C-alpha cells in the first residue's frame, strides 16, 4: 500500500521534472522578462510531492510497516519513536530520498527568491537543477528504491545499527545533506551563468546567500559528526582523518574558498571564472565523497552495506557531470586579466584560496593514494593521521597570521599602516605563550609557533571587536565571529593535544589504579534492562589527589538484541577546564575489564569554538535580511 503510494509519488515528481524542463526550454525563446506562471506552479507541485514522498517513507518507519524492504531492514518495533524516524535517513535508500528532497526544495526556493535576476539565467539554472533531479530520481528508481515491497510481509524488522541510535547521529545526516546537496544549486547556477552570459557582480549576488546557507550547514554537520565520534567511538578523539571524514572535508575546503572569492567577485567584479570553477568543484567533490562512501571503496564508520552497482551508477553520473561542466567551461572561458596590488584585500583573499587549495590537495592525495596503489599494485596500505598532521599543521601558522591581518586591508590599494600593531600583538602573543610554556609544560618548536599565531589571531580580533563597538557597525561581526572561532579552535586543540592524559589498563571489579594524581576505584557493576537493550553499568570513583575532588563516572556496555551488537558508552564528565573520559570494555566475559581513562583539557571549548565558526555564517545570514 505505502509502497504504491511512494512509487506513485516518485513517478509524479519525475514527470513534473520533465515538464519543468520542457516548459523552461520553451520559455527561453519567448520574449518578455518574466518567467511564466505555470513554471512556478509546476515547481511548487514538484516540491510538495517530493516532501509528501518523504513523509510517506517516514510514516512507513513510524508504523513499522515491514511491507517495505527498507523499513524491514532498518527498523524494529521496539525501537524508540525518535530513532524510528531517524532511521528514515539512516540508510542508503532513505538518505537518497532526502537527497532528492533537498535538490527539489533548493530548486524551488532559488526560483522564487531570485526574481530580480535575469530570466534566461534563472531558467537555465532551473533546467540544470532538474537534470540533476532526474539523474538522482532514476538512480532511486532503478537501483535504490526505498519503496520496494517485500512479500510475505515479515513480522519483525532487522533493526537499526545501535551505534547509529544516537541523537547527534540522528541530526548529523540532514545537516550534512543540506550542506552538501545545497551546493547543487550553485553548480546549476554556474553552468547557467556560463550559458546565459549572466556573470560578474550580479551572478555573485544571486548565489551568495545559497553559498552561505550550505556552508553553515556543512560546518554544523561536520561538527556534530565529530562530537558523535568523540563520545560514541570510545577513543576520546574527535578527528581521526578517517577516509570518510576526509571526504566531508574536501567540499568544505572548496566551499570556504568559494565563500571568500565570491566577495571579490561581488565587490571588484573580477575572478569570475575562478568562482565558477569553485562552484562546480564544490558539488563535484560532494558527489565524489558520496560515491566513495556508498560504493564501499572507502571503508570506515559510514560504510553502508555496499553494493558495486550503486558505485557504478554514481560514477557514471559523476563523470557525466564533470565532463559536461568541463566542456561548457572551456567553451565559454575567456582570459581575464587580474591586476591585484599586493597590499589589497583581494590579494589576501586569494591567499586564503591558495591555502584552501593546498589543504584540499593534501587531503585528496592522502585519501586516494591507497585506492590507486591497491588497484595498480595490489599492495594494501593506509595513510595514517601523522601524514595529515605533518603536512597541514605547519601551514596553519602562516594561515592564522594572514587570517588576522588580511581583512584589515582595504580593496584595490591600501595604505594601511599596521606594522607596529602587528609587532606589538606578536610580542604579546609570544609573552602569553611563554607563560603557558613555563607554567604548564613543554612542547615542540612547531607547537610554540602554532600557539603564538593562534593567540595573535585571537588578540587581533579582540581589537577588531573593540573597533566594532566604537563604530557601532555590525558589518564585520560575522567575519570576526568565524575567524575568532577558528583561532580559538586551533588554540584549544593545541592545548588539548599537548596536555591530555591518557592511560589504558585492565581492572577487576574492586580494583584500584593510580595514574599521576588520579586514583581510580572500580566500585561495582550493575545490570539494567532497558526497552531495546541491556546495560552493564560500571561505577568508578575518581579521586583527584591534587585538589581532593571526587568524581563518579559510570561507563556502560550496552547489549542490543536487534541486531545483536555490543556498544561501549563512554562516561564523560564535562567541566569548563577539562573533560574526564572513561570507557570500559570486556572481551569474552573475562573478569578483567579494559579501561581507557583520559583527562582532556578544554574539550568543551573545542566544540564552542567550532560552533562559533558556523555561528558567524548564520549571523551573516540574519544581517543581510535586516539590511534590506
Amino acid at each position: 500500500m505505502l509502497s504504491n503510494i511512494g512509487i506513485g509519488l516518485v513517478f509524479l515528481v519525475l514527470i513534473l521534472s520533465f515538464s519543468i524542463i520542457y516548459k523552461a526550454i520553451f520559455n527561453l525563446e519567448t520574449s518578455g522578462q518574466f518567467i511564466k506562471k505555470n513554471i512556478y506552479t509546476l515547481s511548487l507541485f514538484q516540491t510538495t510531492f517530493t516532501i509528501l514522498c518523504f513523509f510517506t517513507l517516514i510514516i512507513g518507519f513510524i508504523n513499522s510497516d515491514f511491507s517495505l524492504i527498507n523499513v524491514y531492514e532498518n527498523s524494529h518495533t521496539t525501537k524508540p519513536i525518535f530513532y524510528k524516524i531517524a532511521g528514515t535517513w539512516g540508510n542508503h535508500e532513505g538518505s537518497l530520498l532526502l537527497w532528492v528532497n533537498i535538490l527539489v526544495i533548493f530548486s524551488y526556493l532559488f526560483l522564487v527568491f531570485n526574481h530580480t535576476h535575469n530570466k534566461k539565467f534563472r531558467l537555465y539554472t532551473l533546467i540544470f537543477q532538474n537534470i540533476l533531479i532526474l539523474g538522482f530520481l532514476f538512480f532511486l528508481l532503478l537501483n535504490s528504491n526505498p519503496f520496494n515491497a517485500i512479500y510475505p510481509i515479515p513480522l519483525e524488522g532487522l533493526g537499526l545499527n545501535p551505534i547509529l541510535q544516537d541523537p547527534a547521529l540522528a541530526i548529523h545526516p540532514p545537516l550534512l545533506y543540506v550542506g552538501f546537496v545545497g551546493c547543487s544549486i550553485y553548480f546549476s547556477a554556474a553552468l547557467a551563468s556560463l550559458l546565459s552570459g549572466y556573470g560578474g557582480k550580479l551572478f555573485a549576488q544571486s548565489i551568495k546567500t545559497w553559498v552561505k546557507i550550505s556552508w553553515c550547514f556543512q560546518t554544523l554537520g561536520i561538527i556534530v559528526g565529530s562530537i558523535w565520534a568523540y563520545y560514541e567511538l570510545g577513543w576520546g578523539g574527535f578527528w581521526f582523518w578517517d577516509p570518510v571524514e576526509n571526504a566531508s572535508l574536501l567540499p568544505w575546503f572548496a566551499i570556504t574558498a568559494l565563500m571568500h572569492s565570491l566577495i571579490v567577485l561581488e565587490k571588484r567584479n573580477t575572478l569570475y571564472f575562478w568562482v565558477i570553477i569553485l562552484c562546480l568543484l564544490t558539488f563535484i567533490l560532494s558527489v565524489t565523497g558520496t560515491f566513495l562512501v556508498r560504493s564501499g571503496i572507502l571503508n570506515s564508520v559510514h560504510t553502508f552495506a555496499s553494493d558495486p552497482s550503486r558505485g557504478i551508477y554514481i560514477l557514471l553520473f559523476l563523470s557525466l557531470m564533470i565532463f559536461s561542466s568541463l566542456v561548457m567551461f572551456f567553451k565559454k572561458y575567456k582570459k581575464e586579466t587580474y591586476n591585484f596590488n599586493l597590499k589589497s584585500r583581494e590579494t589576501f583573499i586569494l591567499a586564503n584560496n591558495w591555502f584552501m587549495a593546498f589543504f584540499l590537495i593534501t587531503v585528496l592525495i592522502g585519501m586516494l593514494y591507497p585506492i590507486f596503489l591497491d588497484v595498480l599494485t595490489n599492495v594494501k596500505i593506509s595513510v595514517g593521521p601523522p601524514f595529515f598532521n605533518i603536512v597541514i599543521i605547519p601551514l596553519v601558522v602562516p594561515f592564522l597570521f594572514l587570517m588576522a591581518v588580511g581583512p584589515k586591508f582595504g580593496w584595490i590599494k591600501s595604505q594601511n599602516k599596521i606594522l607596529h600593531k602587528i609587532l606589538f600583538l606578536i610580542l604579546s602573543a609570544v609573552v602569553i605563550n611563554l607563560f603557558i610554556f613555563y607554567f604548564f609544560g613543554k612542547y615542540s618548536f612547531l607547537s610554540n609557533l602554532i600557539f603564538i599565531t593562534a593567540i595573535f589571531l585571537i588578540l587581533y580580533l579582540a581589537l577588531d571587536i573593540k573597533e566594532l563597538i566604537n563604530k557601532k557597525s555590525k558589518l564585520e561581526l560575522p567575519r570576526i565571529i568565524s575567524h575568532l572561532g577558528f583561532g580559538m579552535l586551533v588554540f584549544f586543540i593545541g592545548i588539548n593535544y599537548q596536555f591530555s592524559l591518557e592511560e589504558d589498563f585492565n581492572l577487576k571489579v574492586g580494583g584500584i589504579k593510580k595514574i599521576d594524581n588520579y586514583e581510580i576505584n572500580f566500585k561495582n557493576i550493575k545490570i539494567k534492562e532497558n526497552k531495546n537493550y541491556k546495560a552493564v553499568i560500571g561505577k568508578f570513583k575518581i579521586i583527584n589527589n591534587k585538589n581532593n575532588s571526587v568524581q563518579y563516572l559510570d561507563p556502560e556496555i550496552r547489549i542490543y538484541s536487534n541486531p545483536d551488537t555490543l556498544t561501549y558508552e563512554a562516561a564523560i564528565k564535562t567541566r569548563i577546564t577539562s573533560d574526564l573520559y572513561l570507557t570500559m570494555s570486556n572481551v569474552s566475559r573475562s573478569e578483567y575489564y579494559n579501561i581507557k581513562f583520559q583527562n582532556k583539557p578544554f574539550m568543551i571549548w573545542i566544540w564552542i569554538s567550532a560552533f562559533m565558526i558556523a555561528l558567524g555564517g548564520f549571523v551573516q545570514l540574519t544581517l543581510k535580511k535586516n539590511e534590506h
Partner: protein
Amino acid sequence: MLTKKVKNRILFLVFVFFLSITAVFFIIKSLNKNILYFSSPTEIKQREDIPFGKPMRVGGMVKKGSITINEKNIQFIITDFENEILISYSGTVPNLFAEEKGAVAEGGLRDKNFFIAERILAKHDENYMPPEIKDIIEKNAK
C-alpha cells in the same frame, strides 16, 4: 628593459612555481614516511625484508579460545588459517572485537611471531569484513 610591472609578475610566477614544487615534494615525502602497510600473518612469515618496530597493520581472524587478559594487556592470536601471530594490546577494544571475527591490529612487530598493537581497528557493522581480510580468507579457502 623590463618594466616594474613585468618584473614583479615574473618574480611572482617564479615564487609560485618554487612554492608549488616544494609543496608537492613535501607532501610526497611525508606521504611515503607515513604509509602503513597491511600484511597477513603469512606475509610476515614469508617476507625477508619486513621491518621490525615500524608502524604497520596486521589483519586476520581472531583465533577461537586465544584471548587472554591480565592486568596489563590483552593477548590474542590472529590467524589467516595458514599462519598465525600473537598480538599484545593494552586498551579498550572496539565493540565488534570477538573470537572468530575479523580484526585489524595497528602497531609494530617485535619478532615474526609477536606483534605489539597500539590500536585495534573498529568496524561498525556486524556484517562488515575489512576487504583486506576478506581477500585473505577467500584465498585460503580455495
